């Protein structure tokens, strides 16, 4: 079945540093979604990417979808303590429903 891998599993940064998490799928995706889950909370939808090579920005967050539609990244510029949480990518293809990666846990120290 479809597999979605995320790296790193965990990252600890100082406030103001940048952060990037990477997502790779074993199959070509029709779309990829990103979610954020705060400690003790539930996943919250951030964005969906559909087009090959697509880049979208949300304030300090930049999302990219690879040309082959098998990988994606999330980059946070100048992290803040409010960015703490686990970031999940989730991929969907024509043959499968949404499959989540294991997530990248981000810890930001002030």
């Amino acid at each position: 079945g479809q597999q979605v891998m995320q790296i790193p599993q965990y990252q600890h940064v100082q406030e103001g540093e940048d952060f990037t998490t990477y997502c790779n799928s074993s199959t070509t995706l029709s779309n990829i979604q990103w979610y954020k889950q705060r400690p003790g909370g539930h996943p919250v939808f951030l964005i969906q990417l559909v087009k090959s090579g697509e880049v979208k920005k949300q304030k300090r967050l930049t999302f990219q979808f690879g040309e082959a539609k098998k990988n994606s990244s999330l980059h946070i510029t100048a992290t803040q303590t409010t960015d703490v949480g686990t970031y999940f990518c989730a991929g969907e293809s024509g043959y499968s429903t949404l499959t989540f990666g294991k997530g990248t846990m981000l810890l930001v120290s002030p």
Partner: protein
Amino acid sequence: EAGVAQSPRYKIIEKRQSVAFWCNPISGHATLYWYQQILGQGPKLLIQFQNNGVVDDSQLPKDRFSAERLKGVDSTLKIQPAKLEDSAVYLCASSTLGRRGQFFGPGTRLTVL
């Protein structure tokens, strides 16, 4: 708009007992999902409904898990009998065609002793 509602929020049972979870999706959302999230992992889809029909239940352990969405609105997920490895957070989510992303409820944290 009101979010996805789930109850109970917490449940502790002994192995071999049964348990049921309830979910009420966002009004108008035709698609409803049940996920299992084990600590340190991403949500794993158990079952997906479109209105009151099942779209995908390939990862539902059907010997012990069952789910229904009889009127195409709220849904229940049942485990009978529970095993220790069922300890997890059970998340319900909903979505609507034409609107991107899934909207999750607060989840039910199940502990099986």
